[in-house]
C-alpha cells in the first residue's frame, strides 16, 4: 500500500540530453549531461544512468569538472547558483550563490579559485563573461558575489567562448568578429572577417569557436560551413588564418583533441569530421550518425569523443572513430503528429521518432527500445527540404496490425499521401508490409482507427479525411492459385453533405462507428454501414470524439473547438449533458469507465477525470503544466494498484501520461517525493574490493619502490613518524566526509598539535610530485573505501594483506604531508 499523499505531476523520463556539451569524467568512465533541472551521470560503457544529480531549481546551463579535483563536478543553473557535486556518490557538496542567471560555465585549471560564467545583468540581450571567485568556506552554502568582468557583448551560447593554451587567453565570437582577451596583458584584440563588411549576404558569421590546448591557435566555425584556423593573433595586424572547408552548411560545433593534433567538427550533415594536423587533406569521417550534430566533446583522457545530436541522443565514439555506445532519450527533434500510443505487444509508448520512424519507448526502463523505419527512405538532411512526414499511426488487433500514414505536401495542391498496413509476423518477430495504399484519400487524413472489439471476426480500419469521406477498410482473402495471402480493401465510403470528416471512433464492442463531420456527429452501424443517427450541437467543430466504456458504453463524448464538452446518450439519441470546457486532450481509460480531459486556459492546463454517466468529475487537478498539453494516453498497469480514496481510484488500473508542447513527458505520481518515479540513484551498497592482479604486483612494486625512495629522503629529515592510526584527531579528520567537517580553521590547531612530535618542530616538506599529491587528495575523498579496506585487511593474515597495510600507511603518510602543507599556510596566516 502506497502512502496516499497528494497526486503530483512528475517528469517521467525522456528529458532533454542535448542542451549543452556533455562532459567526460577524467577516467572516461562516466559522462555527464545537463537535463532540465538535473545533471545526469551515465556510464560510458553500459549507457546506463548511474546518478541523477538534483538540487537545482531551474534549468541547468553548464557543467564542468573541477580542475583541481576531478572527482568533483561544478554545475551552474539559471537559478543563480553554482553547485559542486561528488558525482561518484551523487552527493551535493557545496552551493555557491551567485545571484544572477548563469548561462554557461567554464573552468580553467590555472585559475584556481575562480570559475567563469556567462551572465546578463543589465539588458536582456547583452551577455558578459565574468569570472566568479569561489570563496573557500566549509559551510554548505556560500555566497559568491565577487564577479569580475572579462568580456562584454558576447554570444549567449557557450559554444562561442573558448579558453586556450592553458588559460592564457579566451576567445569569443559573435556575428562577424572574433575577440580574444589575453589575461596577462588584460587586452582584447578583435578580428573581423573582411568579406563580411561589404557583402550584404555574406554567410560567414561565426557559429562556434575552439582553442588549441597547447598552441596559440583558434578554430572558428562559420555559417557557410567553413572552419578558419587563426594564428598569430597576438598581433592585431599580422594575424593569419587558414580555411578548412568540407561542411556544406553551418558548422555546429568544433573541438580539439586533447593533444591538439586533430580537430573535430560536425554539422547538420550528421557526419563527424576529424581534421588531422589541421590540414584539409587529412580528414577522416564518421558518417550516418542519424541527426544533426549539435555538440562535440572530448574526454580528458583522450580516448573517447562524444557527439550530442538534435534527436536527443549522445553517441560515444572511440578515438578511432567507431561509435561505441548510444545514450538515447526520447527523440524530440520533430513535432509529434501521431500522438501517444501504446503498443499492445511490447507495452511501449509509441510516437514519432527519428524522421520517418516510429519510436518505441519503454516507460518502465525509461529507455528507447528501437525505432521502426516506416518510410524507408534515406533522410536528406538539408534545410528547406520538405520531407515525408509520418502523420498517423494506429495499432489494431492486439498489436497484430499497424497502420501508418505518411504525407508530403510541398504546395497546396500537391499532396502525396500513402497509407501502409503492416502485419506483425510472429515467425520472424517483426512487422511485414501487407498493403500499401497510394492516395487513400484526396486530402489529408485526419483520423485513423481500428475496430478493436474482441469478437470482431474481420479486422476493420476506418480513415477519415478532409476530402469529406471516410473509408472503411477490411482485411480480405486475396489468395489465388499461386499463394495464400490476405490484403486490405476498401469496403465502404461514407460521407455526409460534403463536410470534412474530422474524427472517427469505434464503440467498445465494435458495433457502432462514430464519425464527426465538422460540427456534426454521425453514427453508423458497422455491419450494414447504415447511417443510424446524427448529433449536432452547433457548438463548433468537433475536436475529440470518444465512446464510453464498460458500463458507460451508451454514451458518446465529443469536445468541440468552442470549448463545449458534450455527452450524448446513444439509447435516447439525446444530449445527456454538456459542460463548458476547452478540452485539448481527451483520452478514455481502456481499463475503466474513466475519461481524462485536459483543458487549456490562459494560466495553464487542468486535468479533469470523469465518468460519462455523471457530469461531476471524479478528480480535478489544476495547473498540471504551464504549457499547452498536446497529447495524452492511459497506460495500463501491469500490476494494479489499490488506492482506496476516491480521488486516486482512477489511477488504480492505468497510469496517465501526457506530453507538453515542449515535448516533456509527464505523469502523475502518488508516491511521496522521496520515492521518485525515476530511478534516481544507484547507490551501491557493496564496496568495491578487487583482489590484486599480477599487473598490480609489477606496478605496485614499482610504486612501492618509489615510495620507499621518497621515504628515505623524508627520513633523512624526520626522525620518526608517529603512527597515524593511533592519533584520534587524525583518524577522525581522515575518516569523516569532507563536507561535514567543521571549518578547517577550527580543526587546524588541533590537528597540527596532534601531529607535533614532542621535541622538534617539523619543517613542512615540499613534495616534489604534484601529480602524486593530487591523487592522494582524491583518495582522501573516497575516504571510506580506505577505511573499510583497512578493516578488512586487519582480519586477514595473508601476506598480501600486509602489503596493503604497508602501502596504505604510506599513502596516509602522504596525506599527512599534504595536511602539513596546508596547515603550514594556516599557521602563517595566524
Amino acid at each position: 500500500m502506497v502512502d496516499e499523499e497528494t497526486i503530483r505531476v512528475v517528469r517521467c523520463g525522456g528529458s532533454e540530453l542535448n542542451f549543452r556539451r556533455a562532459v567526460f569524467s577524467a577516467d572516461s568512465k562516466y559522462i555527464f549531461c545537463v537535463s532540465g533541472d538535473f545533471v545526469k551521470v551515465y556510464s560510458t560503457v553500459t549507457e546506463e544512468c548511474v546518478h541523477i544529480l538534483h538540487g537545482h531549481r531551474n534549468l541547468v546551463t553548464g557543467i564542468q569538472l573541477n580542475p583541481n579535483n576531478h572527482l568533483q563536478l561544478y554545475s551552474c543553473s539559471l537559478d543563480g547558483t553554482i553547485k559542486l557535486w561528488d558525482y561518484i556518490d551523487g552527493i551535493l557538496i557545496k552551493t555557491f550563490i551567485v545571484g544572477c542567471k548563469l548561462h554557461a560555465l567554464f573552468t580553467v585549471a590555472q585559475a584556481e579559485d575562480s570559475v567563469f560564467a556567462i551572465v546578463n545583468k543589465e539588458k536582456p540581450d547583452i551577455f558578459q563573461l565574468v569570472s566568479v571567485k569561489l570563496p573557500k568556506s566549509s559551510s554548505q552554502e556560500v555566497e559568491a558575489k565577487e564577479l569580475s568582468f572579462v568580456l562584454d557583448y558576447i554570444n549567449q551560447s557557450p559554444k562561442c567562448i573558448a579558453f586556450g593554451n592553458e588559460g592564457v587567453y579566451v576567445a569569443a565570437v559573435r556575428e562577424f568578429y572574433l575577440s580574444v582577451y589575453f589575461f596577462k596583458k588584460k587586452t582584447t584584440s578583435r578580428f573581423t572577417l573582411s568579406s563580411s563588411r561589404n557583402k550584404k549576404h555574406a554567410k560567414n558569421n561565426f557559429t562556434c569557436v575552439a582553442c588549441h590546448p597547447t598552441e596559440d591557435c583558434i578554430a572558428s566555425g562559420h555559417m557557410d560551413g567553413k572552419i578558419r584556423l587563426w594564428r598569430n593573433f597576438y598581433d592585431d595586424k599580422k594575424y593569419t588564418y587558414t580555411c578548412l572547408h568540407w561542411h556544406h552548411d553551418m558548422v555546429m560545433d568544433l573541438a580539439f583533441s586533447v593533444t591538439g593534433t586533430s580537430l573535430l567538427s560536425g554539422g547538420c550533415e550528421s557526419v563527424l569530421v576529424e581534421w588531422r594536423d589541421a590540414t584539409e587533406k587529412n580528414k577522416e569521417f564518421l558518417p550516418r550518425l542519424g541527426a544533426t550534430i549539435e555538440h562535440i566533446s572530448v574526454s580528458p583522457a583522450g580516448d573517447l569523443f562524444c557527439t550530442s545530436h538534435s534527436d536527443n541522443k549522445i553517441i560515444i565514439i572511440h578515438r578511432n572513430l567507431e561509435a561505441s555506445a548510444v545514450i538515447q532519450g526520447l527523440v524530440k527533434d520533430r513535432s509529434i503528429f501521431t500522438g501517444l500510443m501504446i503498443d499492445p505487444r511490447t507495452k511501449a509508448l509509441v510516437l514519432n521518432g527519428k524522421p520517418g520512424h516510429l519510436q518505441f519507448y519503454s516507460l518502465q526502463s525509461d529507455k528507447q527500445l528501437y525505432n521502426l523505419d516506416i518510410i524507408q527512405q534515406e533522410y536528406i538532411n538539408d534545410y528547406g527540404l520538405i520531407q515525408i512526414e509520418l502523420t498517423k499511426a494506429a495499432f489494431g488487433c492486439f498489436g497484430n496490425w499497424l497502420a501508418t500514414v505518411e504525407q508530403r505536401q510541398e504546395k497546396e495542391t500537391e499532396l502525396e499521401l500513402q497509407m501502409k498496413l503492416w502485419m506483425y509476423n510472429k515467425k520472424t518477430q517483426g512487422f511485414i508490409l501487407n498493403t500499401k495504399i497510394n492516395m487513400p484519400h484526396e486530402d489529408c487524413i485526419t483520423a485513423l482507427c481500428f475496430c478493436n472489439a474482441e469478437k470482431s471476426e474481420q479486422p476493420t480500419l476506418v480513415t477519415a479525411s478532409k476530402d469529406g469521406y471516410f473509408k472503411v477498410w477490411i482485411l480480405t482473402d486475396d489468395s489465388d492459385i499461386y499463394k495464400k495471402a490476405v490484403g486490405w480493401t476498401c469496403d465502404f465510403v461514407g460521407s455526409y453533405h460534403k463536410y470534412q470528416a474530422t474524427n472517427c471512433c469505434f464503440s467498445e464492442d465494435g458495433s457502432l462507428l462514430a464519425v464527426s463531420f465538422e460540427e456534426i456527429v454521425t453514427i453508423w452501424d458497422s455491419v450494414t454501414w447504415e447511417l443510424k443517427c446524427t448529433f449536432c450541437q452547433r457548438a463548433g467543430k468537433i475536436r475529440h470524439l470518444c465512446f464510453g466504456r464498460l458500463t458507460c458504453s451508451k454514451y458518446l463524448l465529443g469536445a468541440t473547438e468552442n470549448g463545449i464538452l458534450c455527452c450524448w446518450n446513444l439509447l435516447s439519441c439525446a444530449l445527456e449533458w454538456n459542460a463548458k470546457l476547452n478540452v485539448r486532450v481527451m483520452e478514455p481509460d481502456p481499463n475503466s469507465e474513466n475519461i481524462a480531459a485536459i483543458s487549456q486556459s490562459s494560466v495553464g492546463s487542468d486535468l479533469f477525470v470523469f465518468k460519462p454517466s455523471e457530469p461531476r468529475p471524479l478528480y480535478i487537478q489544476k495547473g498540471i503544466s504551464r504549457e499547452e498539453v498536446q497529447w495524452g494516453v492511459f497506460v495500463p498497469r501491469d500490476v494494479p494498484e489499490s488506492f482506496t480514496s476516491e480521488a486516486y481510484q482512477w489511477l488504480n488500473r492505468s497510469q496517465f501520461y501526457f506530453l507538453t508542447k515542449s515535448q516533456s513527458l509527464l505523469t502523475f505520481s502518488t508516491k511521496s517525493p522521496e520515492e521518485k518515479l525515476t530511478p534516481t540513484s544507484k547507490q551501491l551498497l557493496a564496496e568495491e574490493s578487487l583482489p590484486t592482479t599480477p599487473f598490480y604486483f609489477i606496478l605496485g612494486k614499482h610504486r612501492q619502490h618509489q615510495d620507499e625512495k621518497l621515504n628515505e629522503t623524508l627520513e633523512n629529515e624526520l626522525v620518526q613518524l608517529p603512527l597515524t592510526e593511533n592519533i584520534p584527531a587524525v583518524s577522525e579528520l581522515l575518516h569523516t566526509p569532507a563536507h561535514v567537517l567543521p571549518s578547517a580553521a577550527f580543526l587546524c590547531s588541533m590537528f597540527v598539535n596532534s601531529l607535533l612530535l614532542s621535541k622538534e618542530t617539523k619543517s613542512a616538506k615540499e613534495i616534489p610530485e604534484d601529480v602524486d599529491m593530487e591523487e592522494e587528495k582524491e583518495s582522501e575523498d573516497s575516504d571510506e573505501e580506505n577505511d573499510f579496506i583497512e578493516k578488512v585487511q586487519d582480519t586477514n593474515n595473508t601476506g598480501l594483506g600486509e602489503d596493503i597495510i604497508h602501502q596504505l600507511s604510506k599513502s596516509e603518510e602522504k596525506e599527512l604531508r599534504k595536511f602539513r602543507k596546508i596547515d603550514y599556510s594556516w599557521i602563517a596566516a595566524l
Partner: protein
Amino acid sequence: MAAGGGGSGDPLAPAGVPCAFSPHSQAYFALASTDGHLRVWETANNRLHQEYVPSAHLSGTCTCLAWAPARLQAKESPQRKKRKSEAVGTSNQTDLLALGTAVGSILLYSTVKGELHSKLVSGGHDNRVNCIQWHQDSGCLYSCSDDKHIVEWNVQACKVKCKWKGDNSSVSSLCISPDGKMLLSAGRTIKLWVLETKEVYRHFTGHATPVSSLMFTTIRPPNESQPFDGITGLYFLSGAVHDRLLNVWQVRSENKEKSAVMSFTVTDEPVYIDLTLSENKEEPVKLAVVCRDGQVHLFEHILNGYCKKPLTSNCTIQIATPGKGKKSTPKPIPILAAGFCSDKMSLLLVYGSWFQPTIERVALNSREPHMCLVRDISNCWAPKVETAITKVRTPVMNSEAKVLVPGIPGHHAAIKPAPPQTEQVESKRKSGGNEVSIEERLGAMDIDARKKGKDDLQTNSFPVLLTQGLESNDFEMLNKVLQTRNVNLIKKTVLRMPLHTVIPLLQELTKRLQGHPNSAVLMVQWLKCVLTVHASYLSTLPDLVPQLGTLYQLMESRVKTFQKLSHLHGKLILLITQVTASEKTKGATSPGQKAKLVYEEESSEEESDDEIADKDSEDNWDEDEEESESEKDEDIDEEEDEDAEGKDEENGEDRDIASEKELNGDSDLDPENESEEE
C-alpha cells in the same frame, strides 16, 4: 543444447547454462555461456546490453549467477545515511550480479557500470560454487559449493561472515525462506537451517541425484487459522539432475515427515524453473519448467496436502522452425529459460542458441494443452552486435505486399447496385440482380446475332478472333487483337463485334488498363471506341453500374487532376461531333432514342451523389479520351452525347477556356495517367 556449466565432464552436473532474469520487471536477462562470457540481454527489444568476460574465464567459468535484489542498492549503510541529508530515493534498477565460478570464487559484477565490482575470494570456497542466493533484506549472500560448505558473505565488507559445513557431500542448491529467517540447502538430503543459529531445523529426504533447484512456492500456510511462525506449513519445490520429477515438500510442525508431499512430472530434466508465488489460499501456484529437451511445461495447481499421483502439466510450449515446403522439415528450437512477467499472465521465453538467444513475451492461454510456436530464427544466426548502435529496426517491405493505387479495385469501395427502396445507397452485402442482366444480355444477343451475320462478310477475322479470345480467355489471341494500333481497324472491329462480348471486352480492357502504362495506351483506344459505339447498348444494361464500377473508378482517378477542364473540353468536343454527325449521314448503329430513354431512367433512379458523379465522369472520361486521340472521324452516338451534355450543364459552364489551353491541359493529362499507372 549446451551441456553443464563449468565445462566439466561431470555426469551429475546440471544441464543448461546459468542464466537469470533480473528481478521485478525482468528488464534484463543474464546468461553466462560456456565460453566464459557473461552476456546481459534486454528483454524488451532483444538487444545485447553488455558483454563481460571475466579475466579468469577459461579456468574458472561461471557456474551459477544471481541478480541482487533491487532494494539492496537503495538501502544505505548507516554511515552513508548520515552523510546524506538530501535523501536519494529508492531505485527500481537492478545492478549487481553475483557470479559463482568453477574455482570457488564469487564475482560481483555491476551491470550499471559495466565492470567488475568486487571479488569474493578470501575465506570462501575452494571448489566449484554450485548456487548463490541473495538475502532479500540484509544484503547478505549465501553460496554453497562442492567443498561441502555453505558460506554467508557480508557483501558490504566483501568478507565471510560465517562458513559452516552444510553436508557430507557437496551442497548443490540453496533457497532462502520468504521471511528471510531460514535457509534450505540441498546436498545428500535437503536441510532447513535456522539462519541465526546455523542449526538444522528440519530434514527432508531429497533426491537420488544432486538437487539443481530449490524454491519456495508459497508465502503463506494453507490454513490461515493457525498462528504462522514464518515457516511452518510452507511448501517448497525441488528439482534434481536426471530426475523427471519435481518434488513438493511441506515444512511441518512435527519433525517426522520427511517425504515429498506431491510431485510434478515433466518430460526431461528440469533446466530452468520459474513460478509465481501464490499469495492466498485460492490462488494457484503457476509453475513454468524448462526441460532439457527444450520444452516448457506449465503447471497450475493449488497446493493443498498430499497427492500420490505425480501431476502432469496443464500446458506444454514448444518452439519449432517453419518447415519451408518439402525441402526442410520443422526443427525444434530449444527454449533456454522462461520467466513469468509481473502480470502473471504472460511468459518471457528465451530460445535459440545461447550466444544469440531470442527473447519473446508470450501471452498464456490456459485452455490449450499444447502450444507450438513457429518461429523463424534463421536470420538471427549471424552474430549481430553492431547493428545495435543505431537502434533502428527495418520492417520488411517486399514485393508480396499488396499495392493499391487509385483506380485499382479495392482502393475505393466497390460499387454495388442500389437497393431500390431505401434512400441510402450504402448497404454492405447486396448481390446485384444478375438474372435480369443475363436475360437482357440474351435479348441483346438476338439482335446482335442478326447484325453480326450482316456485317460478317466485310471484315477480316478480327471480330471473330476477339470474340473467341474473350470466350476462351485466350491470352495470346486477345493480345493479337488488342495490340493493334490501327484506329480504323479498331473501330471496325468494335462495330462488328457481337454485343454480348461488349461487357467482357470492357472488363478485359479494364484489367489491361491497370497493367503497364504502355499497354494501357493502346487499351485507351479500344475503350474509347467501345464506349462510343456501344453506348446505347451499355445504357440498356440495368447492372451497368456494378459491372463497370471499377472502370469508372479507374477513369475518375486518372482524370481527377483536371476535372473541370475535362468537363469543358468534353462538352466542346460533343458540340463539334454533334455538328459533324448531323452533317454526315452514315450507316450508323441501329439503336437510337430508345436507349437514351432507358439510360435516363436508370440515372433518375439513383439518387446518391456517388452514382451521379459516377456517370458524370464516366462521360467525362469518354470525352477525354476522344480529345486525347484528337482524331475526329468517328461515329458517335448522339444519345450519349446528349446525356452527357445534360450532366455537363449541371457542372456549370462557369468558364470559357480557350481551346489551346484545353489542348495543353490535355497533353498534361496523358503522362499523368501513365505515371499513376506505376
